[in-house]
Structures are given as C-alpha cells and as structure tokens.
C-alpha cells in the first residue's frame, strides 16, 4: 500500500468519534466482532493512526494514537444501544474500508459516506411481509408438511410477523414482543391440531414460529467465540437463548390454552 509521506493532521477527538461511529454502526447492524475490529483498524491505518479496541456487548472502547507520536493517546467509549440486523450496512462499510485504504480518502469524505450508509433503509414492509410468509410456507414444506399445513403456517407467520413489528415499533421489550408474536403464530397454527387438518398438523405449529429464530446472534456468537472475543460471544449466545426461550414461552402458553400436547 503506497502511502503519501505527509498525511493531514486531524483532531484526535474528531478521528476517534468517527471511528467509534463506524464501529458502533457495524456492531449494531450485525457484524461479528472480528469484522468490526478489522474494518475499523483498516480505516484508522489509512488515516495514519494506531488503535486499540476493547469490545463488550454494551459498548466499544477505543484508544487512538498517532503513528508518528505513539505516546500521545486518546481514549473514548461509545455505547451500542440497539441491535437490528442490516447486512447492507455491513457490506457498505466493508467496501468503504477498502476504498479508504486504497484511495486515501480524507476524513470528511469518510464522515459523509458513513452518514449515507447510516440512512440505508430496510426493505419495504409489504415486501418483507410477503417474503417472510413465503419463507414460513417453505419451512413447513421442508419439514414435510402438505398443502393445508403450508397455508396454515403461512397465515400464522404473516399475522405473527405483523404482531412482532407492531409491538417492536411501539417500543415494547424485545423478549416480550417475540413471546407475544410466537404465542399468536402458534395459536393460529395450533387450530390445525385442534381440528385435525391435514396429515401432520404439528409441523405447521413447529414451523410457524421459525421466522423469530435468532439466526444472526447465534451465528455471530459462535464466530466470536472461535475468534477469541469471548465476552461478546457469550453475550450474543445469551441474547440468542433469551429469544429462544421467549419463543418457547409463547408456544407453551398457546398449546396449554388450546389443550394440545
């Protein structure tokens, strides 16, 4: 990597704030910890700084030093408050980090690009609903369900997903929203068990709550543990388990109410 001999000098606070912005954005969008570490380090080196990062689930600590004067250090902490998966953000920051290190971007362009990436939207609600419903039907088919079970699982998934969105949108607790969505979805698909629709109605119940599974926390947890980020890995595993238990709670309550075992 060819670096110009004179890099512009920036205020430590501005640089560390920007780097922490990037790190927190990546963490909350569902990147694993080693990816955050690598991307932020790459950008920092391109700007001419050395960094040390400390990760925990609740926030990130960064210590910044100039490559020319390593004894002058500046430490800052940034909280990571929400975890909402957005892989477009992860992908865009990864691409940006390579461009920054190859094309030697100035600080201002990086800040502008981060603001653009921050505003990348999720897919529209309607598209999401249709795709998740299809996914619910697909899960049911994969587990061996016939057409009545698939339709039931699709309907339960659509209504449960809408319930989850409404509850999360109005600010309810994550575990409570998931438990409620799981309860609603499994109560609807449980009707098949009560009235004996189709061959194996229990498949519809088991697959109608699958849209809630904490896929990204669980995968990231294993990746983090394997890379040695033990604390974040454990926290992610716990988060995944909390969500899994919330799903189980909804299922248990609905099956108790419907009287099916």
């Amino acid at each position, binding site marked *: 990597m060819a670096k110009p001999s004179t890099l512009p000098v920036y205020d430590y606070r501005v640089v560390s704030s920007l780097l922490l912005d990037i790190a927190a954005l990546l963490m909350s969008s569902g990147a694993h910890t080693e990816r955050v570490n690598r991307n932020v380090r790459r950008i920092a080196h391109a700007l001419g700084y050395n960094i040390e990062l400390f990760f925990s689930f609740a926030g990130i600590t960064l210590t910044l030093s100039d490559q020319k004067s390593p004894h002058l250090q500046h430490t800052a902490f940034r909280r990571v408050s929400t975890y909402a998966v957005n892989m477009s953000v992860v992908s865009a920051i990864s691409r940006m980090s390579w461009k920054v290190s190859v094309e030697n971007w100035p600080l201002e362009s990086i800040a502008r690009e981060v603001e653009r990436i921050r505003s990348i939207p999720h*897919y529209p609600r309607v598209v999401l609903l249709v795709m998740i419903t299809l*996914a619910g039907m697909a*899960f049911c088919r994969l587990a061996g369900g016939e057409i009545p079970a698939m339709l039931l699982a699709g309907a339960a998934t659509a209504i449960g997903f809408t319930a989850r969105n409404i509850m999360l949108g109005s600010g309810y607790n994550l575990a409570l929203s998931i438990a409620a969505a799981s309860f609603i979805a499994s109560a609807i698909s449980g009707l098949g068990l009560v009235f004996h629709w189709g061959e194996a109605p229990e498949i519809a119940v088991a697959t109608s709550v*699958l849209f809630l*599974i904490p896929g990204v926390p*669980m*995968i990231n947890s294993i990746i983090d543990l*394997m890379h040695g980020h033990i604390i974040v890995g454990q926290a992610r595993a716990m988060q995944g388990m909390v969500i899994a238990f919330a799903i189980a709670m909804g*299922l248990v309550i609905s099956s108790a109410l419907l009287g099916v075992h």
Partner: protein
Amino acid sequence: MTWLLIEKCVWAALAAMGFATLFTTPLRAFWATALLAALGYGLRGIALHLGLDLLAATLLASCTMGLLAIQFAHWVHTPTTVFMAPAVIPMVPGVFAYRSMMGLMEMSQTSIFSPELLMQTISYGLNTVFILLSLAVGVTIPSLLFKNRSVKDIRFLRSKKSRV
C-alpha cells in the same frame, strides 16, 4: 426421491431469500443466498441418502457452502456472512427444537418415569444444539481456514484485474 429433493432445494432457496429480506442483504447478493441455500440443502439430502447421519451431513453441507462463499464474495462484492447467514437458515432444525421443548413440558407434567420420553427429549435437544453448531462452523470456515486473513486476499480463480 430426486424430484422431491429438487423441489425441496427450491423451497430452501425461497426460505433463505425470505431471511435475506429480513436481514436487508443487498439485492445484488440475493442470487448467491438462493444458490448456496439450494446447493447446501441438496448436498445434505444426497449425503443423507448415501447413509451419512444428519449431523455429519449438515456439517459437510455447511462447510462446502462456506468454501463456495469465498468465491461468491468476490462476485457480489460483499463479506461472506452477508449472504451466508440467511443461506444456512433453512437447515435450522425447527421441528427438533419444537419436539424437544414439548418433551420437556410433558416431563414436567408427569410423575411416571419414562425412559423413552427422557431419551427422546434429550436426543432431540442435543441434535438441535449440535446441528446449530455445525451450521455456525460452516459460516465461520472462510475466516478460520485462512488464518484470519480477509477473504479479499484469497482467490481460487485468477481474475484479470483487481477490483475494490
């Protein structure tokens, strides 16, 4: 057998694309998600047919997906997890998880010792956990096998010019 497997591969691809929408995977990576999900599911089906047990078949499928993902990452210009995370979701053992939990509930409500119920519940539960672990290992393979270098430095196919 063959037709059923091909049909299931299509459903697996659909389920993976549903989750790709949920995770806001960029549109340009959707084909990679769908293709990997279908390939992985098909490979697992073939391995099961040839007599491998479910766990080994899942591990084989997810690791193959992980290796293919390294090349796919160059074509769609995203990190591997962006399309790998939704692609392994169709193989998540939802019915096993459901049965193990229902078994636990049944155990909590009965006073008669039933070794069949106990063993079945434990077996479903352990299978759920181990299958999830083997899926995660497959997703991790790209960064683990190559000593933690960035996937960008690994090339299986020679390309004419290097792109950012």
